[in-house]
């Protein structure tokens, strides 16, 4: 991912299932400040909820960082604003990322649409996971 200018940053610690609420409301508010409409806020909040749920359920707790980002446009072109979500845990990690990114694949009893869903909800998506070390997921959505 190309680096972007960060103008605001919110950290949400995730340990208990009730912590998800703060991540969702913070994401909504930040997306609102970035100028996203109701639908955009909903998409971003849902993606954050998805990642936060994973961290709490499978990652043994972690943190999600929400960022208001800006990218400069080409010469003479306006730049664009967006939201960046960085979700990180130091849990058991994902053994097979390719499979985790497939629809309807789940090691738990979930629908198995979470990670691929996040990728579809957002514009940019990056995931890296090492078994025994943890999982890092970065996703971005730009305002149109």
């Amino acid at each position: 991912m190309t680096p972007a200018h960060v103008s605001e940053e919110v950290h949400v610690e995730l340990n208990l299932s009730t912590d998800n609420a703060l991540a969702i409301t913070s994401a909504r508010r930040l997306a609102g400040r970035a100028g996203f409409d109701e639908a955009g806020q909903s998409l971003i909040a849902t993606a954050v909820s998805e990642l936060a749920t994973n961290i709490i359920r499978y990652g043994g707790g972690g943190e999600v960082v929400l960022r208001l980002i800006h990218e400069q446009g080409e010469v003479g072109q306006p730049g664009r604003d967006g939201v960046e979500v960085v979700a990180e845990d130091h849990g058991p990690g994902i053994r097979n990322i390719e499979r985790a990114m497939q629809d309807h694949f789940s090691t738990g009893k979930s629908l198995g649409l979470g990670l691929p869903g996040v990728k579809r909800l957002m514009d940019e998506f990056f995931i890296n996971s090492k078994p025994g070390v943890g999982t890092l997921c970065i996703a971005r959505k730009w305002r149109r």
Partner: protein
Amino acid sequence: MTAKNPVLTALDADLSVRVLNQIPTPVMAVDKDFKIVFMNEAGCSLLGLPLGEITQYKCSELMNSLHCGTPECRMNQAMQSGARATARNEVNIDGRAVPIEYTAAPLKDEAGNIIGGVEYVIDITSRVRDEQKLREQSRTIMEISTPAISLWEGIVVLPVVGVVDSMRAQQMMNTMLAKIKETSSKIIILDIQGVAAVDTAVANHLIKITKATKLMGCRCLISGISPAVAETLVQLGIDLGDVATNATLKDSLGDAFELLHYEVRKTK
């Protein structure tokens, strides 16, 4: 050089001890074998022993903490790695368990060799209590925000507001099933307009709830699917299957009346 002056050095040492004794929280130093070499006054009074006696013990003998003797011990980690380390722990003094947070740092001699460790301890009893209270309060908020309303003969509405996690979903399930039994309702409307984020976990819960209500001979209608939620569900790839959904509670109520063969008429 002032540092070489033995009188000033002694004064410095004396001053350092007095400073440490003014700190209202335990500060302790140990050698590499974890034998206590210093404890400030706050630590001595916590343990209820004079310094002269305390220095005869290893720290684990007096603290009896959950980390003592385990790889979790931050004092050990600080001495091994040379870096500061902080953690939550629980000490056991006179049979009383006290939640603490402690920070350990390596203790070095003039040449920079690690000769032991130093740590300070903060009693976090009130913080732990506050956290507990906060958790209980959020649970209470969840409980009071899951009401099931008998809207009409045979029709129950459950407005869902806020965040749905698995605990909340379980609560909704229980509330609904109990209400169905109590009122012999044939239709239950789950209004999700106020749900903060309908993600795959929430959708999964909703599907399960509709299945359970079906088993009890009750139809479940989901209302409050806003354009934003509809788009999100499609993007996520969620198939709500044969669950009847509507944009508004009004629409679902209209459907419910129709299914129960009610007719709403204006008489004048």
